[in-house]
């Protein structure tokens, strides 16, 4: 019923407008006015409205900037080394374009207002002026040259960060799928991210290349091939034509993938396999990304299904994740979560979002990022100890930092007993009793 009423109102409205038009046309016809003759009143009215519009537009602009421009448009300060440069350049560019925007729009609307049609005036014959044209080709060219030079400088600094500690960069892989992120650290023992092959994710939960994942995957393919072959052999007469073909297709596909996997691993010597397994074993998956302020992180991005985009707005970081083609981005955080909460509010969290359309769940694909001041900050040691490496143990076991391990055993560090126990075991197994004693004595002497 409602819809019917709305429909009737709309139709009546359109008929009403049409009737008004008709009346208007008849009236103009009676007066002998032609549609193309714009009266002085109309011209001056529209010209005035141009100025009114301009002012209203600028007020709107000012209001938006006032209400929504604060605290860097509500996003907060850049929390990474390159992000600070990005923001500086963004500010500069915003000022330049705001000036151009105001200048050009003002000239446009002021001229539009000032020079509206008057019978007694004659337009100024001014078809061209080489000098003027030269000026407004050269000036934009100079401004753009500045923008380009500064832009490329920042671009190079962002893409190839000059960092004395680049060899100490922590390696993290972000792996995207519909609609979640997976995060893998290079590990505490060797820090290297192990290589992957998507074909291994058949029977394995990970696609990292190790001795065992290869064997499990091959066994899984064999099993799948056998299952489908049995199905075909046993039920062939009951299968519909399409089902038969589909099963046949599946078998071929499994065989193809399996043979590629074999071809890939054929040349692997025992030593090679051992060494890549070693690189893989200390890698660990995490459900949150924990970072340390001032530490450089080299991210590698991969995707399982479609293109996603790793977007960390607060770090001014964005990189697409592309199936089959790993991408990279390096970043050094400069603000901790705690410091950022003082600016942004108590519930603030750094986030990893997806910024490339990837399907129905695109809008809720996220992962939390926590930036700590040091490894000794609250939460880091617990988080690290609670993860499990691909080799099946806690990444805490690989820690060789005696200072950090000593700290985990002190009274006022705020760690739970459980966590303390994990680190205690590591501390004791990685360093001999004498070594520990000497270090502890040194610490007491220094008053720590």
């Amino acid at each position, binding site marked *: 019923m409602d819809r019917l009423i709305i429909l009737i109102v709309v139709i009546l409205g359109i008929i009403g407008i049409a009737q008004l038009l008709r009346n208007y046309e008849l009236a103009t016809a009676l007066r002998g006015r032609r549609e193309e003759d714009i009266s002085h009143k109309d011209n001056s009215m529209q010209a005035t409205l141009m100025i009114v519009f301009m002012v209203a537009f600028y007020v709107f602009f000012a209001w938006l900037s006032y209400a929504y421009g604060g605290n860097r448009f509500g996003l907060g300060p850049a929390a990474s080394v390159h992000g600070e440069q*990005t923001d500086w350049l963004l500010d500069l560019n915003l000022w330049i374009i705001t000036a151009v925007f105001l200048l050009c729009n003002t000239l446009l609307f002021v001229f539009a207002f000032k020079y509206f049609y008057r019978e007694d005036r004659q337009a100024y014959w001014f078809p061209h002026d080489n000098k003027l044209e030269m000026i407004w080709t050269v000036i934009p060219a100079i401004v753009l040259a500045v923008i380009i030079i500064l832009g490329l400088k920042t671009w190079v600094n962002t893409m190839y960060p000059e960092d004395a500690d680049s060899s100490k960069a922590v390696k993290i892989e972000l792996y995207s799928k519909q609609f979640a992120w997976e995060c893998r650290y290079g590990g505490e023992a060797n820090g290297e991210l192990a290589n992957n092959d998507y074909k291994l994710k*058949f029977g394995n939960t990970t696609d990292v290349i190790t001795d065992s994942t290869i064997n499990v995957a091959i066994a899984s393919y064999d099993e799948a091939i056998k299952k489908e072959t049995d199905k075909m052999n046993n039920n062939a007469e009951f299968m519909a034509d399409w089902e038969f073909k589909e099963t046949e297709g599946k078998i071929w596909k499994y065989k193809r993938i399996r043979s590629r996997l074999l071809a890939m691993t054929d040349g692997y010597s025992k030593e090679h396999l051992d060494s890549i397994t070693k690189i893989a074993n200390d890698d660990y998956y995490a459900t949150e990304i924990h970072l340390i302020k001032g530490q450089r992180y080299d991210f590698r991005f991969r995707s399982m299904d479609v293109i996603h985009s790793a977007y960390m707005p607060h770090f001014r970081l964005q990189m697409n994740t592309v199936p089959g083609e790993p*991408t990279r981005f390096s970043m050094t955080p400069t603000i901790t979560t705690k410091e950022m909460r003082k600016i942004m509010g108590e519930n603030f969290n750094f986030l990893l979002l997806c910024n490339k359309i990837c399907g129905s769940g695109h809008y809720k694909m996220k992962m939390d990022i926590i930036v700590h001041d040091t490894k000794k900050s609250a939460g880091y040691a617990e988080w690290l100890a609670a993860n499990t490496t691909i080799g099946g143990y806690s990444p805490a076991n690989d820690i060789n930092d005696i200072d950090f391990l000593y700290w985990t055993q002190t009274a006022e560090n705020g760690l739970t007993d459980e966590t303390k126990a994990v680190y205690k075991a590591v501390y004791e197994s990685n360093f001999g009793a004498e070594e520990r004693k000497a270090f502890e004595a040194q610490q007491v002497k220094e008053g720590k």
Partner: protein
Amino acid sequence: MAASHAHNDHHDHHHHEESFVSKYIFSMDHKMISKQFLITAIFMGVVAMMLSIFFRLQLGWPNESFGILSTFLGEKWAPGGVLSENMYLGLVTIHGTIMVFFLLTGGLSGTFSNLLIPLQIGARDMASGFLNMLSFWFFALSSVIMLFSMFVESGPAMAGWTIYPPLSALEQAVDGSGLGMTLWLVSMAIFIASSLLGSLNYIVTILNLRTVGMKMTRMPLTIWAFFVTAILGVLSFPVLLSAVLLLIMDRTFGTSFYLSDIIVNGEMLDSTGGSPILYQHLFWFLGHPEVYIVLLPALGLTSEIIATNSRKPIFGYRAMIGSILAIGFLSFIVWGHHMFVTGMNPFLGGVFVFTTLLIAIPSAVKVFNYITTLWKGNIRYTPAMMFSVGLVSTFITGGVTGIILADSALDIAVHDTYFVVGHFHIVMGMSAVFGMFAGVYHWFPKMYGRMMNTKMGYAHFWLTIVSGYGVFFPMHYVGLNGAPRRYYNYTNFEFLDQTIDLNQLISIFAIIGALAQIIFLVNFFYSIWRGQKATENPWKSNTLEWTTPVEHVHGNWHGAIPEVHRWPYDYSKPDADGNLWDGKDFTPQNVPLRPGEEDH
């Protein structure tokens, strides 16, 4: 019909009896084809605008129920009046596709290139009337298929208007990548054929069929814009066709041009070696020139309208031609700026930063030339002129934010956020649509022999520019706040809270803007049948189309084709004493130089 036939009889030697079908449907007359393009495009535009209102409702009032959604989309796609996640993506995709290709490419070029090329260069018709007809009918067919794709069970394409694979290649990835995507691709392939037939025709006509005296340097800027647009289309659309064909092969024949190492929805695929990025290169090789395919005709139309209504020659005619050519050339070497964050080699990215920012120079020249044309003019505010001034404003406002996006270092921060959405809707959406409206208001008398209502034109303009800026200007703030585009809602993230208010404001303006278009539609269709009868040259314009009779005749001119003796911008030209020649502020192109008068 009989009456019009009798009327034309004693003038027109080529005229012969036409059936309804050959006159209105399978017409080979460029003027009729132009009207067919316009009406089809208006219909498509209205559809695409309605789709945008549907998803604006969801964005303005997240997850609230609207009866209108279930009425139009049904319970499947809007259960209980709440838009579904998948249909949201479908609406966004089809809205973009229709607006970019069907309204602004087919509609703008198709309508005005067809109408104005023969009329303004002094030709009796297009070089090939048959190809021209074919061009429209391919366009109509592709429109029907695109609309039809919204009614299939698995829904329309849902991968965004750029349909990046693998999302668009794998039906397991999203519902819309099933039959909906197949139809999208088929529609696009046919559309490309239409565009190529049209463009080839335009180029050949402009090069070969100019009347006596119509040197290239005497052509109106509209024709220059259409000419360069057609060249861009011929060179870039085939590349999109190849991208589409490869995608069809990946989807249907098991190739892997774009696919590699994929496990989708739990299923392991055996595609290896393909590159999804290859598709993006092919797509944007068209995609960026496409921006100028959309924009240049609008700028061309506006150049003509601004000069005519300022009663002043366009400032820097040759510089305007030069900047059209420069923009056309540069548009081919900037496509990589859409791909800064795909993992492309940073050096290559740097090259694209350089070429992209160079485009700002010819664009700036155009803006300054428009502004100087207005300076000391005698501006007559027809609705067409209002929209043209509006276009210059949106071209400035939308253009400047392009400088941020062209800068790869800054693009990292704002890529794929609402900042981009705001930017391209103002510079491409608003400018091009304003150009189209300006064109319709200005050349309506030439198309339908009647005038549109001026007062309603004013109302239409003011509501449109206010709501247009109201929609797209705040989007920059949403984007700088960090809001990614194509999100179904923004309520999951606290740091985006301030965008919720803004999104509501944007949606309200969008609804006002959409309703304002009803004024245009009523004015347009009413005026076709009941508008005031037009005179031959209502705007006191110089170009040749205003020397043709008001009622349409085959061959455009009753007698011989007029000869051209001057450039098209002799407005308010003073004689040696500073007085107007003959006391008139315009001198049409077909008037021979008077004694003592210098050619421009």
